[in-house]
């Protein structure tokens, strides 16, 4: 019952590990992979450069117009170039080992989890706390609480387990979009061209459309047409309908009430762009489209939710769903938990009643656990008081209840 199913829980750590592996623009393994690719590219370029130079010198010396001194100078130049590149690559290399290290730390974190055997253990509680902090940081980063996220990661010493850097760049792009500027986001599209193509993103087209709309808004018709020629036409195969619609703006002023144009001019299109950018960015990083906190919390609240949670007389302070102002309010739209088996909780002690702690009925048909009643009786001359009705009985009057 309280055994951990490691495989099941581990499968949930997909984004946690995967983000390390696959994300093309940032973060551990794939960041590592791309850093590696970059240094490889640099080195290969330098090698071909080197070969060319040498071939040239050979050619020249074959013609007899180079002396040994000149060759030495040329070779020295090559050495200098190689040393410069070496310095340049040092930064990339530092990055490589940072990400390599980070992936390792995460794998170790998951391995630690595998060594925990029971859901009741302190180790599991500790692991759960770290997991909660991880998903809280994920939530805070997505919603722009970067300061709090950084502070939390630092104070809990889990910086290696979260992806703060990833949001620094995307935060900049989002802020730019909030200022009605597409430039940064277009740059981002360019940097992630192949990734975006793979997920069939239309973000770049939407941005181009927006820049066109802004020109149309300012009635800079001539520029708008030039812009459309240059930046919209490449999309004609797939987006002809949208292009012709957006071109229609030239005929309508920004304050038009006419249906499709009013919507195109609407500033809320910028908010849509932000969310489009976000979802594309998350998809590229192998992040879940919605915060993990929402998913986890929903599953947890649904598993805990009972019809009793919303009845004041059955309220249990320890039950998260019973708080009508906080999590209870959050859970209103969620399904209730489902039960094939009875589980009876003692209203006095909060403990489960079972073979080791039998359910006992008082003469007024209120049921409590044997242990709780026995303890109460031992302190009160064998008298027990029903906490819900106030009636007092002798301990000998209680009767076993059979719950099958």
């Amino acid at each position, binding site marked *: 019952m309280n055994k951990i*199913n490691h495989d*099941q829980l*581990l*499968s*949930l750590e*997909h984004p*946690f590990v995967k983000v390390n592996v*696959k994300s093309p623009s940032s973060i551990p393994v794939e960041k*590592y992979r791309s850093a*590696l690719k970059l240094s*490889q590219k640099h080195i290969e370029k*330098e090698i071909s450069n*080197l070969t060319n130079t*040498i071939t040239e010198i050979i050619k020249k010396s074959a013609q007899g117009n180079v002396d*040994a001194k000149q060759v030495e100078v040329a*070779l020295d130049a090559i050495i200098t170039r*190689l040393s410069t*590149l*070496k310095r340049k690559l040092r930064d990339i290399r530092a990055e490589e*080992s940072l990400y*390599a290290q980070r992936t*390792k730390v995460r*794998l170790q974190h998951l*391995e630690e989890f595998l060594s925990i055997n029971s859901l*009741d253990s302190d180790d599991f509680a500790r692991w759960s706390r770290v*997991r909660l902090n991880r998903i*809280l940081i994920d939530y*805070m980063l997505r919603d*722009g609480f970067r300061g*709090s996220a950084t502070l939390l990661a630092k*104070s809990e010493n889990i910086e290696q387990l979260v992806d703060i850097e990833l949001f620094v760049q995307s935060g900049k792009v989002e802020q730019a979009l909030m200022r009605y500027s597409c430039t940064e986001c277009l740059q981002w599209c360019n940097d992630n061209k192949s990734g975006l193509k793979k997920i069939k993103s239309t973000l770049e087209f939407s941005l181009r459309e927006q820049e066109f709309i802004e020109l149309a808004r300012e009635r800079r018709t001539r520029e708008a047409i030039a812009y459309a020629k240059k930046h919209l036409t490449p999309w004609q195969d797939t987006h002809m309908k949208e292009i012709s619609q957006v071109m229609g703006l030239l005929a309508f002023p920004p304050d038009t009430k006419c249906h499709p144009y009013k919507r195109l001019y609407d500033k809320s299109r910028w908010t849509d762009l932000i969310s489009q950018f976000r979802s594309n960015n998350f998809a590229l990083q192998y992040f*879940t*489209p*919605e915060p993990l906190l929402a*998913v*986890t*919390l929903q*599953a*947890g*609240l*649904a*598993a805990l939710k*009972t019809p009793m*949670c919303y009845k004041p007389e*059955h309220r249990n*302070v*320890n039950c998260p769903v019973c*708080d009508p102002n*906080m*999590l209870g309010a*959050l859970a209103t739209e*969620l*399904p209730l938990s*489902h039960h094939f088996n009875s589980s*009876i909780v003692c209203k006095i002690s909060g*403990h489960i009643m079972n073979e080791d702690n039998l359910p006992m009925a008082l003469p007024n*048909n209120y049921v409590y656990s044997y242990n709780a009643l026995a303890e109460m009786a031992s*302190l009160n001359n064998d008298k027990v008081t029903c906490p819900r009705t106030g009636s007092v009985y002798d301990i000998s009057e209680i*009767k076993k209840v*059979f719950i099958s």
Partner: protein
Amino acid sequence: MDKFIKDYDKIIKKQHTLETNDPLDRLISVVKEAKEKIQSDPSSVNASLVNLTKSVKTTSSGISEEFKELQSLLSKYSKAVDKTFTGDMMSTLSPHAFDNKEHILRNTIATHFIRQGNFEIGDKFAQARVSSEANITVPDEIRHQFMEMFEIVAALKENNLEPALMWAMRHRSGLEKRTSTLEFKLHRQRFLQLLEAREVRLAIAYAQKNFGHFGNRHTQEIMRLMCSIIYMDHIHTSPYADLVTPNANSDLQHMFTRDFCSLIGLSCESPLYVSCTVGTQAIPTILKVSALMKAKKTEWSQQSELPVEISLTDDVKFHSIFTCPVSKEQASETNPPMMMLCGHVICQESLHKLCRGSTKLKCPYCPTESPASNAKVVHF
């Protein structure tokens, strides 16, 4: 997991060799060598250059081979990760359940931090968005209460029981109503501290002064404590070893936190922590069922209820659930649990069906027969 770590270690090792045996250094040394040769023997320019071309070629092909190897290790590893970590949690999400409830969620998070004693983060989080949306607020009262609590816990950690004792005495009546033994446990701990410090005289004086109030409730315990004095020199091998367990302090902290929270009407664990921990355990089951239903192309008919039972650990079962053993339905106000004379409980509707008009009722679980009117609604 082991395999991942091993594979990853290989990658790191490979990278390390690439680092210590820098390809650029190799190239530089090849070029340098050629240069030195030319310097020492200017007539060999042509031959050395041809040589150089050759060695550059071998070095560079060696380098690209090494890169290729590392890249392929990485992509292999990445594919293995794809295969193992397959959960797609998004299918369990009710997309609109939290709509327009952002501020509730944020208040919950801010309160969570306060409850964890992370006041700095709680405040920073609460203040982050003051301008744009509804303010995140944690009532000052809760804040102050938790500050007090964490101060006392911090003192407890340092084996300073004084603040906790002061608090417990101030709230004696409330604690007693909850049948809490906190105050006695604190006195008991202080007494044991004195004994362990071999301050027997002080310990006895302390017992005389403080144990009196607990004479009725904890007679047995007090007798054991007083008797432990004579075993103090070898207490760990005596029948009183349980009095000095190393966990005593953390148990006391836990007990204090629990009683403190219960007295101010709050749960002893942060609700956010409880929900998320349960959620983490619930998601795999929900995922499995939703995948099964997808495969069978059945829809889950009761949207208002989860399609599957999530097994909870005992500490997060907060409400009595009675499922009728006959009808397998959950008891409700209109269909309450009824106890028959023999003590077996079934739901009212099942009971009526079993009677089928007769006034006599045969218990489905034991041979007892009793008048149906004798069955009583029980309250759990």
